[in-house]
């Protein structure tokens, strides 16, 4: 099932990290560049886990590429546990909702 970022996140960039405020939990989270890249991808449109892995493979350096699957799974798991991303049933509906 595709994944998408939750609505209403507030985002501030500082140096090499990003602080994200969750509108429902009212928690603020520090994200490293890789985590924010995935979040940004899912803010644009829903993506499947395999698409996220592909995206990270492209973004990673050659020597880190073999770990892309492990990296992605960990990132997705952490972002989900923080409530910053969620599964969505219909990618087309969500994509239209975000880009009317």
């Amino acid at each position, binding site marked *: 099932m595709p994944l998408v970022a939750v609505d209403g996140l507030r985002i*501030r960039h*500082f140096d*090499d*990290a990003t*602080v994200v*405020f969750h509108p429902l939990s*009212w928690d*603020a989270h*520090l994200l490293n560049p890789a985590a924010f890249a995935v979040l940004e991808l899912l803010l644009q449109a829903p993506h499947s886990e395999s698409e996220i892995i592909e995206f990270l493979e492209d973004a990673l350096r050659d020597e880190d590429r073999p770990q892309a699957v492990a990296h992605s799974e960990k990132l997705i798991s952490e972002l989900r546990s923080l409530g910053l991303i969620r599964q969505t049933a219909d990618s087309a509906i969500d994509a239209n909702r975000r880009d009317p």
Partner: protein
Amino acid sequence: MRIAEIPEQLLFHRLSTEGVGIDFGSARARVKTNLPACAASIRTVYGGYFADDPSGMFDVTVDLRRVRGIRAYVRPQCQLLCDGIVDQEPFPLDTSLPLLEWGTNYSLATRLYCYLLLHAGVVERGGRAIVMPAMPGSGKSTLTAALTLRGFRLLSDEFGVVRLRDARLLRMLRPLALKNESIDVIQRFEPTAVLGRRFPKTRKGTVAHLAPQPSHVDARQEVASPALVVFPRFDPAASVELHPVQKARAFARLAVNSFNCEALGPQAFEALSQLVAESSCWQLRYGDLNGAIKALRELLDEAKQVDGPGLLSDKREAVRW
């Protein structure tokens, strides 16, 4: 009229009847007590404040009274009523001022939801503020006191009061509570500093209060813009060391040091973001007060040379004075 100018008997009469209004800058309190010793302490540590008309609106009314009943004779105690309610444990009668101070701070921390409140010492020079968040025991109050005795103006020792709409720092001018060794350190550092009497055997050891200077009281309505966020740590083995702190990390540490970040939610997030964006963030380890003051003065001057947000590069290498 300043409180120090009121004759002792008249001040006690006013405190024990209608009370005295005191303006801390971002909050006002109506202070009452029927304890003569407490009135004398108030006259010393609040001497530079103005005795305002006690009628009208105040953020809190604090009333320090002797506990009645058997406690009037056996280990006598005092208790603090905040807006008529006792929400602090009673203290021994001879530690009335510490109870008044802690109780007032607690009351303000739990009432002022119109501001973001950081547990931080804040001083300013030329309208540019240094915010010093720290956990108890880090040397924050000692450093804040020393800075105010060397040309910086006090905004607050306990509360960094941040205005939500624009992240400006407001004043919460309260007597500075010095504990244990730091009392003698500050007395030696500046022999003319006005310190109240010492209260031994409190929950935090011996406590004495440094009276804010009258010129700082006069500036209690002025705001300051954020320039530096400095996380101080006293280390007798260190001289003075400054290390840059990443802004995102500074954001997280400030949030942890906040009294009401969670309650204010998105408003606190925006104000804190702006404060951090406009500040240069540093970790300070110091064992020498004069060296720390010199280092902070130079950092602030450097920040002043650039106009606009993001004033000082955090890329600077760790520096040692």
